[in-house]
């Protein structure tokens, strides 16, 4: 067992460590950037669906597996469309460093106490007010006609905005962090039937926005001087300052004990990092180290690095069949072009050579191992390279007109020189032209004809032909006379 573990550890390459670390970090960053958002929760849901789908597939539940696959595909699209605002808000206004390294945090601390004080002052004076504290969602699509304000939050400023003579006092003020971003904002009205009859337009506007977004809205009633907050579908009447402060802190994510909160957050992030590492390691292991399947590949053998002056004559195998073992998913994704079988001929001598095909000859994607190779050995016949000159002979076919006689024929050039394997070239004495039909010949003339290279030697000779700049067309001049 221990030996197996040691073998496994020793088989892990440094590239695998980088692979796991890189993907773990990406997963961790996705968590850090999207945690707490609805998009993240949906993504977790999709991940669970994927796990279920894999389980269904391994159990042979074909229909369930297909259905899950379809749901995942649709859900992935829906996430992008529905949560585009959340996704955009994560990547917007952040530099690349913040995306890669920084942790999400509220850029500015909202002055909860000042807001609470102002709200109660307004209530006391029966001045109606509507304050929006956005959550993580962008409100741009839901509100209208806001006037940019961009002023630092202070009790005086808030009170002056909602002062009855102020032209913008009827609209809502949007407070983000320690700044009043917009005033005179028109909010969407709620169509709920269950709201108390005492609630006027201001309350309906507050409920309308909080129903459609994650914003919290504070309403100060002009008639009753009552303070109400709306968040989601909740409408809560505020009785004391502490209640409002708590509600604001909860909405804004401000903890009383900040250091304890930070400590908890640190632990949470460490756990997230560890979980990311475990998930990615698990996925990596199942993909690259799982040995649950074997697939065969027919791969052409590359012969290379023969000694100078040596020529490859023929081989017993031009391709081999590889039985590769690995995870089903990895094997499914492998294309034959990603696998290479290369035989090094630098040690080959003239004559017959036999080479075993081992792992050294293979280039296979990481995560796969060679189970079997057929054939296990290849025979390679090598030969020394020589140069030889060949006379060219025309190969006439057909019938010449009965009244004519072909006196002589001459080719230009009369000889060609080829470089190639000694065994082949020594057995050859003549190079012939392609067949020249006699039927059409009526008198003396010339024609260009191609040379015939014996098919068995074609690859080698063509190579040499290119090297020597040899053309495979010759001119045949022929002399015809009348039969006496």
């Amino acid at each position, binding site marked *: 067992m221990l030996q197996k573990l040691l073998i496994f550890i020793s088989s892990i390459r440094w590239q695998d460590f980088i692979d796991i670390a890189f993907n773990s970090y990406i997963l961790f960053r996705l968590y850090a950037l999207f945690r707490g958002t609805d998009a993240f929760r949906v993504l977790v849901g999709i991940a669970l669906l994927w796990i279920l789908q894999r389980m269904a597939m391994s159990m042979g539940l074909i229909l369930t597996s297909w259905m899950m696959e379809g749901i995942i595909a649709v859900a992935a699209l829906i996430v992008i469309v529905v949560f585009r605002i959340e996704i955009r808000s994560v990547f917007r206004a952040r530099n690349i460093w913040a995306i890669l390294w920084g942790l999400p945090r509220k850029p500015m601390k909202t002055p909860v106490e000042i807001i609470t004080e102002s709200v109660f002052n307004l209530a006391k004076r029966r001045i109606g007010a509507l304050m929006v504290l956005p959550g993580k969602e962008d409100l741009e699509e839901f509100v209208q006609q806001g006037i940019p304000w961009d002023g630092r939050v202070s009790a005086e400023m808030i009170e002056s905005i909602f002062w009855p003579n102020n032209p913008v006092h009827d609209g809502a003020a949007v407070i983000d962090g320690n700044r009043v971003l917009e005033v005179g904002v028109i909010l969407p009205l709620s169509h709920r039937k269950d709201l108390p009859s005492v609630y006027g337009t201001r309350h309906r506007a507050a409920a309308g926005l909080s129903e459609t977004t994650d914003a919290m809205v504070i309403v100060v009633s002009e008639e009753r001087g009552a303070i109400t907050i709306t968040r989601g579908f909740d409408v809560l009447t505020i009785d004391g300052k502490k209640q409002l402060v708590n509600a604001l802190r909860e909405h804004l994510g401000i903890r009383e004990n900040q250091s304890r909160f930070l400590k908890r957050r640190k632990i949470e992030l460490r756990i997230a990092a560890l979980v990311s590492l475990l998930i990615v390691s698990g996925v990596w292991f199942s993909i690259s180290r799982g040995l649950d399947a074997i697939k065969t590949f027919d791969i052409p053998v590359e012969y290379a690095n023969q000694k100078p002056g040596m020529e490859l004559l023929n081989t017993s195998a031009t391709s081999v069949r590889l039985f590769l073992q690995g995870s089903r998913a990895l094997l499914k994704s492998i294309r034959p072009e990603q696998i290479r079988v290369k035989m090094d001929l630098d040690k080959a001598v003239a004559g017959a050579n036999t080479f075993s095909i081992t792992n050294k000859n293979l280039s296979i994607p990481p995560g796969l191992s060679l189970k079997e190779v057929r054939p296990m050995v290849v025979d390679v016949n090598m030969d020394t390279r020589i140069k030889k000159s060949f006379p060219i002979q025309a190969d006439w076919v057909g*019938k*010449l007109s009965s009244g004519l006689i072909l*006196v002589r024929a001459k080719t230009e050039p009369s000889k060609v020189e080829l470089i190639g394997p000694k065994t082949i070239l020594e057995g050859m004495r*003549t190079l012939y032209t392609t067949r020249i039909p006699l039927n059409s010949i009526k008198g003396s003339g010339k024609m260009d004809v191609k040379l015939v290279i014996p098919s068995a030697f074609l690859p080698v000779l063509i190579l040499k032909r290119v090297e020597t700049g040899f053309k495979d067309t010759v001119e045949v001049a022929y002399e015809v006379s009348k039969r*006496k």
Partner: protein
Amino acid sequence: MKRIWNKRKSLCLFFAVLFCFAPGVHGADGDKAGEGSPPEKPPRLTLKKAVLCEGLKELAPVNETILFSVALGGVTCFTAFDPVPKKTVVFHSWFKRDQPKKKIKLTLKPPKWSSFSKIRIRNMDVGPWRVEIADSEGKIFKTLRFSVTE
């Protein structure tokens, strides 16, 4: 098959011998060739003429060609040597596409000598051929190339 080849070989030799004794084929003044000339260099066997022809008429080649139809029945290789310093032999080696098919031995006698060999051709012989004229040591005087056609 072997018997047919032997028969053919005998026929060729018979023609060759007959041809050698015919008047006019080797001149009566052959012995005079070297008379009066300085004996600096010993004369060497020299091929004066080598042709392929459809046949012989009055012991001279008829219809010199490089193309022989199977219908013709045979191919004749005519060779004339001058001088022939001493009695010797030459060979007519016939090849079809580099494959040896027949080797005919011809005897030459001084002072000059003409001789020929003939092979029969059939449908299976269609293709490019060559005949090599060589001395007893294998030195090739000349290679004649021809085609056998339908």
